[in-house]
């Protein structure tokens, strides 16, 4: 494993742990100011300040009771020079403040650029697939 790949894996791990413990600054720190984000929920795309909105993230944190179970598994890192893309599965689980229980496997793709010596996330795409059965529902119960 190259030094860059290790640095990227550490960044992904730190970000997951920051989000898990609802650490706002730690969750947003790895993102570039011009990030393009395709999130699991609408809209189709968010860019820049809209994608890095601390108020929206704080509101999302508040929808979870206690810490958020968050594991990024099966991660592949493709890295050369100052660019990298990574993908894997994010297992997110825990109790929501409305009493619901969330336990979902999410596909995650993260693209990074090394800027001024530090890796930054410039694009993130997270999703679950659409069921092919014509129900129009998202497949939220699939496991790798």
């Amino acid at each position, binding site marked *: 494993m190259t030094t860059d790949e290790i640095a990227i894996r550490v960044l992904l791990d730190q970000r997951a742990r920051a989000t898990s413990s609802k650490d706002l600054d730690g969750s947003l720190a790895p993102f570039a100011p011009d990030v393009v984000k395709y999130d699991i*929920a609408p809209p189709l795309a968010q860019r820049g300040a809209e994608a890095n909105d601390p108020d929206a993230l704080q509101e999302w944190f508040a929808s979870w009771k206690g810490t958020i179970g968050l594991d990024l598994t099966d991660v592949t890192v493709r890295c050369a020079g100052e660019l990298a893309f990574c993908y894997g599965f994010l297992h997110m689980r825990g109790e929501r403040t409305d009493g619901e229980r969330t336990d979902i496997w999410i596909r995650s793709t993260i*693209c990074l650029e090394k800027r001024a010596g530090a890796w930054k996330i410039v694009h993130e795409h997270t999703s679950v697939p659409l069921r092919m059965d014509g129900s129009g529902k998202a497949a939220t119960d699939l496991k*790798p």
Partner: protein
Amino acid sequence: MTTTPEADVRRVVDAQASAVRRGDVDAMVASVAEDVVSFDVVDPLRRLGHGSVSERAAAWVASFEGPITWDNRDIVVTAAEDVAFASMLCRVTGTLANGTRIDMFFRKTLGFQRRAGRWMITHDHASVPFNPETGEASLDLLP
């Protein structure tokens, strides 16, 4: 001819869109790597390998009656020596064999690696968002 990695990757993205419009499955998957890992719009969670992706592309094209329109917008290509990625919003319109009219946007991220001098897609992630309240996929969103 002088060219840049960005321009080369952009050509692959454009060639794929034009292959869809022609319904040419072989051309659609011509730049897909043997060991591609694909997260498709529809289930399962993941498809592995060129064979599985080609099969899905052929079934998808066959599910349409008549021509498919495919337009990419908001394309961002980032490319260097041997790794590149691209993100875009795709609009697909057409009529399914069962008569259903399709007109939808989805998101696409492609990961590329240069292998033996050719840009190959080694990762493909396409999706629509979903409403966590209702569990419904959001098929009618506009950029």
